[in-house]
């Protein structure tokens, strides 16, 4: 009993000290407990991301359409839309291959919501944008190359 209390006090003290020392930022210490899928946002490529999302190798599909400019003038704000014609689409994910972490955004779509989403993302450099769709618990994807003239991560 005492041992447990000592351990808890010790580890929270260490986390706190690390946060204070800047070794582990406060945001990271907090984010450990969020129900946000951190593993999926840490991956570096398409295959790794799909694995972290619970799937095997995704199949390429012509039923997914990516709406994005061929050349994005400002990599900090690239409008990307994804429309899926695959029945029973459950979720749509947008990945940027050459970003530090591949997954940019994920959208869970309950029944009744159209499988069409649009948002704006940051791209560090010219890269392939992958749209991954989860339908019937299987993963599909398609790709579009977007050229970026000015990178979007601040230089």
């Amino acid at each position, binding site marked *: 009993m005492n041992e447990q209390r000592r351990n808890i006090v010790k580890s929270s003290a260490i986390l706190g000290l690390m946060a204070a020392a800047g070794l582990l930022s406060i945001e990271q210490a907090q984010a450990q407990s969020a129900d946000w899928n951190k593993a999926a946002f840490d991956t570096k490529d398409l295959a790794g991301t799909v694995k972290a999302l619970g799937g095997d190798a995704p199949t390429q599909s012509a039923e997914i359409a990516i709406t994005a400019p061929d050349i994005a003038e400002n990599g*900090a704000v690239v409008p990307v839309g994804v429309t899926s014609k695959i029945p029973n689409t459950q979720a749509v994910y947008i990945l940027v291959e050459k970003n530090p972490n591949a997954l940019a955004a994920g959208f869970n779509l309950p029944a*009744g919501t159209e499988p069409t989403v649009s948002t704006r993302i940051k791209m560090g450099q010219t890269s392939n944008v992958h749209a991954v769709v989860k339908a019937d618990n299987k993963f599909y994807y398609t790709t579009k190359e977007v050229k970026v003239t000015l990178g979007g991560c601040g230089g």
Partner: protein
Amino acid sequence: MADPMRIRATSTPDGVDVRVLMSHEMETGQRRDGGGQLVPAHFIQTVKVSCKGKTVLDALWGPAVSKNPYLQFKFKGCDKGDELTVTWTDNKGDSRTDKVVIA
């Protein structure tokens, strides 16, 4: 938290078309400020949109979504006059909720 979200929800024969513009820094955690220090990551992690008590969109975002995020999607199940609620939470634990009546 910051400025209120600008939400526009219009009812069309195909369903409700929703456009949201949120006000948020969306720092990636990779940028350095003037003094060379890394600006810590500060970004929206989850966005939930619901209508009549039912979640119609549940988004999980990373730092690669642009500053002042824009979101657009469509769903069926609510009509003109119903209330739409949008809530976001970020990695620092802040959150914001805004509501709008579907037009």
